[in-house]
């Protein structure tokens, strides 16, 4: 079977697809990525990619999206349907530079199935043109709670390109892969076209430093803001670090390969590290404080530890609410993260028990290997 992967350009969209791609290779299928942006992340995962938009400055595209849209996103923050609709409009512009190359590569490479992340319209265009099954991979849990049909939104934004390629309507996915554990679904049955898949964290390979294999002497908390938020300034970290300095624990400040000198001298119990894959770091931690990115949230669920989530943008508010609603921890503003909340994070037995239980549930879901077997069904 030949599987073509196409994603939106950021790491938060690319990384959650890698475990499925590795599983496909492990079953002996052919895998190719075609996407723009952080293409090196795919190469660094040992996979092959064609750059769908060489030279495109995605930061500029995001910045260029008007203040009006940003206000709308801020206003819609807790409403999944509205957030998705606005996001799709935004991401239509992000998808645009990749459309022609994705279609052309798909026509040359002749995949049996196309896997895309939900905001990457090129997946829908290529699948529509080739007439091959489209599979959507959801990035975070709870994202399937509400599933409005927003295909018309995508078509409106990209009508010219869809018409030029003779694709009359945006295809429905043949399957939607959902990483939402059963209890987070509220025990609801998945619709027939939704396939449950265990989220197996992939946050990059690494050479593991020895200190991560040692059992820490104190309770250890990880602080991270994912791969996008730190670029907008580290001001929001300051209250968290201040609270950490008073807590009876050690903290790992994992902001990626970002210059943390603006934070001044860090307290004695706070250690800043460069980029390390989140899952590896969490395996030595008792709890995490993070921004609520989809991948970060899922990796923390996989680690089975309680969470404080300080959402800033995008789907982070929704992910934060999901964490709180399922008793895994609490959504908070940065200012609300104080010594007392950190102590609760480390001591709340209910949160910890729920986190361990949900990890067990996650691990019991069909693995990417099993989902690949289902994909093979498309090829008969």
């Amino acid at each position: 079977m030949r599987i073509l992967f196409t994603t939106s350009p950021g790491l938060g969209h690319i990384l959650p697809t890698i475990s499925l791609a590795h599983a496909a290779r492990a079953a002996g299928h052919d895998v190719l990525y075609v996407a723009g942006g952080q293409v090196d992340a795919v190469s660094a995962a040992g996979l092959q990619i064609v750059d769908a938009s060489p030279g495109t400055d995605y930061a500029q595209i995001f910045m260029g999206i008007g203040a009006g849209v940003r206000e709308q996103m801020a206003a819609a923050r807790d409403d999944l349907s509205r957030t998705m609709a606005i996001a799709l409009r935004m991401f239509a512009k992000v998808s645009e530079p990749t459309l022609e190359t994705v279609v052309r590569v798909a026509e040359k490479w002749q995949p049996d199935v196309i896997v895309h992340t939900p905001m990457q319209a090129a997946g829908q265009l290529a699948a529509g043109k080739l007439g091959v099954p489209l599979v959507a991979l959801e990035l975070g849990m709870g994202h399937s709670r509400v599933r409005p049909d927003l295909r018309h939104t995508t078509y409106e934004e990209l009508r010219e390109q869809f018409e030029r390629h003779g694709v009359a309507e945006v295809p429905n996915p043949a399957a939607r892969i959902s990483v939402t554990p059963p209890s987070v679904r509220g025990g609801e049955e998945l619709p027939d076209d939704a396939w449950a898949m265990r989220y197996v964290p992939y946050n990059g390979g690494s050479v593991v430093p020895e200190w991560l294999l040692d059992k820490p002497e104190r309770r250890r908390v990880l602080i991270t803001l994912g791969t996008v938020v730190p670029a907008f300034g580290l001001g929001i970290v300051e209250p968290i670090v201040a609270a950490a300095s008073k807590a009876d624990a050690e903290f790992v400040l994992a902001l990626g390969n970002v210059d943390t000198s603006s934070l001044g001298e860090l307290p004695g119990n706070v250690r800043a590290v460069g980029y390390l894959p989140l899952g590896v770091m969490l395996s030595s931690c008792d709890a995490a404080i993070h921004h609520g990115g989809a991948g970060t949230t899922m990796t923390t669920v996989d680690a089975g530890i309680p969470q404080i989530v300080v959402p800033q943008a995008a789907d982070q508010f929704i992910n934060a609410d999901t964490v709180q609603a399922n008793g895994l921890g609490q959504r908070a503003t940065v200012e609300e993260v104080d010594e007392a909340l950190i102590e609760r994070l480390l001591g709340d037995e209910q949160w910890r028990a729920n986190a361990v239980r949900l990890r067990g549930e996650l691990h019991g879901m069909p693995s990417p290997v099993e989902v690949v077997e289902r994909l093979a069904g498309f090829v008969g």
Partner: protein
Amino acid sequence: MRVLVTTLSGHGHLFPLVTTAWALRSAGHEVLFATAGDMTAVKTTGLHSYNVAPGLDMGKLVGENVGEAFRSSTSGRGFGDNPGGDLRDHPAFRLFNGLAEGMVDGLVGLARDWRPDVVVYEAMNLIGLLAARAAGAGSVSHAIGVSHNKQIMAVFGAMQIDIFRRHGLDELPEPDVYLDVAPPSMKPEPDGWSMRYVPYNGGGQLPGWLTGRPERPRITVTLGTVAPMMAGIGPVERIAAAAAKIDAEFVVAMGSNVDTSSLRDLPDNVRLVGYVPLGPLLASSTAVVHHGGAGTTLTALDAGVPQIVVPQGADGPVNAAAVAAAGCGLNVTDEELDARLVERLLTDGSLRSSAARIRAEMRAMPSPAEVADRLAKNFGGQNS
């Protein structure tokens, strides 16, 4: 379950275990890849790795010994050439014994700390058995070559026996499982469990010319990741000289660190490229000329294209002989390599049909995903 995978760090040793490691990871198991020396290649597998000999000057150890060791099999000092002689005199001894000595303490220490449920080791990296013993873990010997077998691996074992004696063992223990990648036609009696070799040749950005169908038949020419440094690029020079007479296009894939200055005035139908992952390159090729490296040979068999194998050293002669015996390629010396032989790659129907048959055989073998499942049932216990 926790799986410790361990190989030497050279591409030819490391690459063949990557798909297996991916199979285990994407089934949800924890995987740590232990090696030493240059960690560049393992970092871009997307796996978590551990350097078991960070302080050691691996480059020096390899550099002083590898040339003679590599060429020994084509200069009359192959493993089978002098069975009565003392192994310690063999050019390969200092290299492989030295690497094992350099890695063993760190590897055993890691196994004690990390406590894997099973250790998967490339077949010649036998210190994996000591790591398994230290952790009370299962042990899996993972073949990296289609013609490698227990007899050949026993020679590596003999090279490392002093290390085992230091750990209180007079002889090498048997691993719990052998994984054999040879297809049935090439080895009717596999050593242990059969597993399909699914190529891993490194990630990368594919150049535009690689994704479509070429206009003329494409012949890939490669000498792998080691031979050019050890034995020069003679076969490639011969191909370049003959290419203009042949109605095909040639892609000469030489990797990133090779001196290709002798390849001047290449004809129009010869394209010289740096490192391109071999699997995708062969997917668009009609035939391949190569040096008989284990991974290259397996990738060529998986691609199902006829082969010319021009062994340069190491296990080249053994793999070349296996390909020729299977009827899907020609085993030739540098001097024999000429336009007439290359033409045969394009016209010889029996080479092509044998290649297609072996490819189909390989694809029917249990995939790494299936083998990972079997390993979990054997070694996972309550922790899978």
